[in-house]
């Protein structure tokens, strides 16, 4: 008897492999891989070093923000302000450096701005119990408006003494010819994955998304964690903004416009659940990669401009279809 109880307790319902295969992330990854294989055969220009360099670089901005967004989504929240925060942080960086300060000070100012915005969102959501949608929608307006005020709505394209450093930061390729932004993305993704899986903070993020009430009852510092999560989300937007500024070499007040939907889409396609409690760092990357591969393929395949939206939309839906069909099969 004792032995069987022991056995039961040691039993695991699913092994590692079945765990992986049962996830949406896996199936979207398959979709991405299939798309890449198809494009390699259908076009001469897809599988070239240059194109791959471009694709991987383009994917980073959405992917970096999607990492932060994934945390927010896991807690059951949403952050619509990321596109505007990216714009505001880029602008703060640009203006600071344009005024003659060093790149370190510029980055510190941008990061500080991001954290401040995130803290504002987080405090309203966590302590005053505002709906995240309302707060971050408000911030979507506010942050972009502040970027306009700060820059007088002009294009900033001169970054003072450290101009070249900034451009190298975002546009260079210091490591085996991999674009710098890609390196940042990989490092941040590993960090996010580690935090989610191995730290208490990550555990609490999942707990809040699973059952916020239960988390409160068991002594999880729900409010502080929520504030932290929105700060991380804004920070990720700020980092993406800094890197993007270095890449673009100019900041206008409309960068990042409409990005929030793309970012959320990347996270959700990668398996995060807007109802909370589910999501992975890897999924965010896969989702972002899917969106970029679609975008890239439209140009390479020469799709008619009017039809492009249909292809993008269709592909987004199709990518998730894989996973759905598997699910449907299983539940039969």
């Amino acid at each position: 008897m004792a032995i069987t109880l022991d056995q039961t307790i040691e039993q695991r319902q699913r092994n590692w492999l079945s765990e992986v295969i049962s996830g949406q992330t896996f199936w979207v990854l398959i979709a991405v891989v299939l798309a890449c294989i198809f494009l390699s055969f259908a076009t001469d220009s897809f599988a070239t070093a240059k194109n791959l360099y471009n694709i991987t670089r383009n994917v980073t901005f959405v992917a970096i923000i999607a990492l932060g967004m994934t945390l927010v989504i896991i807690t059951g929240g949403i952050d619509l302000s990321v596109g505007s925060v990216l714009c505001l942080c880029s602008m703060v960086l640009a203006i600071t450096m344009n005024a003659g300060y060093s790149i370190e000070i510029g980055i510190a100012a941008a990061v500080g701005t991001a954290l401040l915005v995130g803290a504002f969102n987080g405090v309203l959501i966590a302590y005053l119990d505002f709906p995240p949608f309302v707060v971050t929608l408000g911030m979507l307006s506010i942050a972009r408006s502040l970027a306009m005020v700060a820059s007088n709505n002009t294009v900033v394209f001169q970054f003072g003494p450290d101009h070249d450093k900034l451009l190298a930061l975002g546009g260079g390729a210091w490591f085996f010819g991999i674009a710098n932004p890609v390196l940042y993305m990989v490092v941040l993704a590993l960090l996010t994955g580690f935090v989610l899986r191995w730290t208490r903070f990550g555990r609490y993020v999942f707990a809040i998304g699973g059952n916020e009430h239960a988390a409160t009852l068991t002594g999880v510092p729900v409010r502080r964690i929520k504030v932290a999560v929105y700060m991380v989300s804004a920070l990720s937007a700020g980092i993406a903004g800094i890197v993007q500024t270095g890449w673009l070499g100019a900041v206008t007040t409309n960068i990042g416009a409409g990005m929030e939907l793309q970012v959320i889409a990347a996270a959700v396609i990668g398996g995060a659940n807007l109802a909370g409690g589910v999501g992975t760092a890897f999924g965010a990357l896969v989702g972002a990669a899917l969106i970029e591969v679609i975008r890239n393929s439209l140009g390479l395949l020469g799709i008619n401009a009017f039809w492009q939206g249909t292809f993008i939309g269709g592909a987004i839906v199709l990518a998730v279809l894989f996973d759905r069909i598997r699910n449907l099969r299983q539940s039969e």
Partner: protein
Amino acid sequence: AKKQLVIVVKGLDNPFFEAINQGCQKWNKENASAEYECFYTGPASTSDEAGEAQIVQDMLGKADTAAIAISPSNAKLIAQTLKTAKPSVPVMTLDADLAADDAALRKTYLGTDNYLMGARIGEYIKKAKPKGGTICTIEGNPGADNILRRAQGMRDTLSGKKGLAALKGEGGWTEVAGCPVFTNDDGAKGVQAMTDILAANPKLDAFGIMGGWPLFGAPQPYRDLFKPMADKIGKNEFVVGAADTIGDEVAIAKEGLVTALVGQRPFEMGYKAPSVMMDLIAGKPVEDPVFTGLDECTKDTVDTCIQK
């Protein structure tokens, strides 16, 4: 409060309109003691057409408004708004005009001749490659009338025919598959799309960029893309004709990474508009249209091409 000379632009998210604002503010500074002031407004986003119409209504309903200059993003919609509002103050258009059959709804048009602008870009391209070739047009927002007009101007010039929606060998020019590209006024997206098009069509001969976004919004990736081709551009083996002279664009021209720039003069529009409106209020005769000029820059003329 002062009476207001209102300028309603398509959207605040565009540095082009900001130059109009600068002109407007300069006028305010120079006419600090005037009975009127210039007031600049518009919806947050250029794509918010209904929002612009609502702002026009709000402004027409305001007692302080003495005259209004509108840059319609949807000409028909603004025409309809004006028809129903039956404004008692003078109305003019700025930067973009109403359709020809609604011309009676406004007193005059002040701004660029967008068709001419596209035509000038077309001429530069044609001059560089008289025998024609393959081309891709980069456009902005799919609904933006001024951009569509520029594209038409360019196509007509290249083909020598009127009103073609796409070039299929007319005048020697062919638009490649996947073009025109709509970038929704996003610089990064514009350059990314150009990169893809170039990768898919290595033999492409020309880009016609109808709004300057890829150059002034993403100058660095633009440079990265065309630096390897600077030689070809110098020898007219590859041609890039682009609109606007905003931000880093002129510097890019100086580096020889663009064949020609054709720019508008938004500052002049914003600066002139209040005077034109005052003339309208006073009932003085005003020309229709009042065109502001174009600044045309090539590698050789960059230091002198911008009207100061």
